[in-house]
């Protein structure tokens, strides 16, 4: 099956924009996301094919508009909830607590 991720040969997606001296991670959350993914993967909660498929299932417009590590975030949240490792409301509750703490 194809999907928005199947970009080979598509037109109209704009110029390539290499960033000179690009850092490995642009934001701290990206750095944490990367580390989290590898650690969670090491824990055997999902395999790489499931992970890619979870990215491929993203809303197509959101896929194109969001950054790379946002794809990872979306996929991990989806998989961990689908597999019952975390609950949707747990994530929402923790997010709300952290938002309050940070304010």
């Amino acid at each position, binding site marked *: 099956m194809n999907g928005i991720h199947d970009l*080979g040969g*598509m037109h109209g997606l*704009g110029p390539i924009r290499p960033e000179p001296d690009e850092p490995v991670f642009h934001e701290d959350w990206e750095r944490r996301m990367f580390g989290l993914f590898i*650690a969670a993967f090491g*824990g055997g909660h999902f395999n790489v094919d499931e992970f890619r498929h979870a990215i491929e299932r993203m809303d197509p417009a959101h896929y194109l508009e969001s950054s790379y590590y946002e794809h990872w*975030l979306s996929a991990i949240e989806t998989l961990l909830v689908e597999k019952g*490792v975390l609950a949707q409301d747990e994530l929402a509750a923790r997010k709300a607590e952290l938002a309050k703490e940070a304010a």
Partner: protein
Amino acid sequence: MSNHRHNRPLTDVELRVKALESLLTEKQLIDPAAVDEIIETYEHKIGPRNGARVVARAWLDPDYRQRLLDHGTEAIAELGLSGVQGEDMVVVENTDQVHNLVVCTLCSCYPWPTLGLPPVWYKSAPYRSRAVSDPRGVLAEFGVEVPESTEIRVWDSNAELRYLVLPRRPAGTEGMSEDELAGLVTRDSMIGVGLPRSPNG
């Protein structure tokens, strides 16, 4: 986990990542020390200098070069490079007839042990879409001129197979040491969107 102060509210994405890390840590599904070490490894230890050593060795040692082209994974492993996202490697050689270009149209497959983590442009829609349909245009965008008579081969990476380009050894490098030669090898030359530096700057 870092606890530095923010001068602005956390974004939605930042909060989601924090929530994830917080819950996974609490449930002991991840070890925060392991997370830190993973970050340290890929941010500071693994990178294109690894691949540059492979290329320099191939430039100096014709037998190694042949092993590299015949059995990429094993030859790369001879230099202690192997593992995650580099389990199956094919090395493709640039010649005066052929220029190679590597892409992953479907996602971001990239040879981590030799090149580290891929740059944003490699993982983004413009490169992924056009590398396979307009490689000459893509090369021109990167400032690489390839004669019309040179064949361009584009390799679409996948989950099972990663590619490393073996660029041509620049002229005027006779007598240079392996370290000096490695210093000329750029990350972009091992993806195929660049050429190695010349010894004259």
